[in-house]
């Protein structure tokens, strides 16, 4: 259950983004969590409910985007979708593949409350 530590780190990145944009309130946080990131989306959501208390994101909504596991075969160059524990080419079955997606643990974007004139300036 390291999702709380992950959440605290997420909130640190969110606070940094808010400060850089002169905002004092976060409305929405969008993250991408792949099955191979080692983080469980539902657990992250529950941890967020605890971790956000008293932070700039206390009233923010957390959106967790699921990411498919996709591999590209080094032999037949085909990209296919697969499972986290079967990183094999969907066409030839080889394990000589590169992970194209599925390992993400990314803060994608934040929606921030800003004074109307500041928003208009961007």
């Amino acid at each position, binding site marked *: 259950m*390291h999702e709380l530590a992950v959440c605290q*780190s997420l909130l640190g990145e969110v606070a940094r983004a808010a400060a850089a944009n002169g905002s004092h309130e976060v409305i929405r946080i969008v993250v991408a969590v792949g099955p191979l990131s080692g983080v469980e989306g539902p657990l992250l959501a529950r941890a967020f409910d605890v971790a956000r208390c008293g932070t700039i994101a206390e009233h923010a909504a957390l959106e967790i985007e699921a990411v498919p596991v996709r591999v590209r075969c080094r032999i037949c160059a085909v990209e296919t979708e697969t499972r986290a524990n079967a990183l094999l080419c969907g066409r030839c079955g080889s*394990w000589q593949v590169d992970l194209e997606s599925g390992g993400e643990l990314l803060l994608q974007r934040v*929606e*921030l*409350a*800003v004074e109307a*004139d500041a*928003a208009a300036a961007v």
Partner: protein
Amino acid sequence: MCDQCGCAATPEIVRIADHHGAFSARPVSSKSVEILTGILNANDRRAAHNRAHLGRHGILAVNLMSSPGSGKTSLLEQTIDAVGGRFRIAVIEGDLETENDARRIRAKGVPAVQITTGQTCHLDAEMVHDALHGLDLAAIDVLLIENVGNLVCPASFDLGQHANVALLAVTEGDDKPAKYPTMFRAADLVMLSKIDLLDVLDDFSPAAAEGHVRALANPAEILRTSARRPETLAPWIAWLERQLADCRAAA
């Protein structure tokens, strides 16, 4: 009660606070900002700092991970004996509680720093950074970091290591790599430990374990070791020597 919306705020709070934005002098709007940074960015930056710092001292750092009880500390004890003076080892031990493992390593004459994480299920880059202050980096060639026994959480946190080693004891299931793909995909070397028990266990197949590691698109070498059979450690020590040479060549 607030007259504006009927919420439970007292009149005093309504007066002094920027209540619901209703009395805000300036209108508020929202702004969407694309970020695209890793959620563990802060840890990753500290880890990169550790790696650079260790690199400057010519130190190879290896992160050892496994379930509790798969023999990490016994492997380290026997490794220290088997290495002799060929290179200088130091150890960072991670456990929730007790100094026991660090004591076992120090009894072998090797410097060891114990990190007790309390309820935290993994080591992170900051803990390792702090532990490095307890070691004389000029007197180390190989730093072995024994992570908290756990096949889930440690896989997400970069410590600043140069290589990951995952232990899988033959007393566990040979399908552990399929059950914990994030951990075993990250392994640069997999060690099937307690291999001396294989004769009395009919339900662990090294070939099946290797198949599960390959199904994670992981080409990692798979060694068979036993801390009770020091002769089985030679390929592991040779691997460490190769990694140390590569690490120093890259520095």
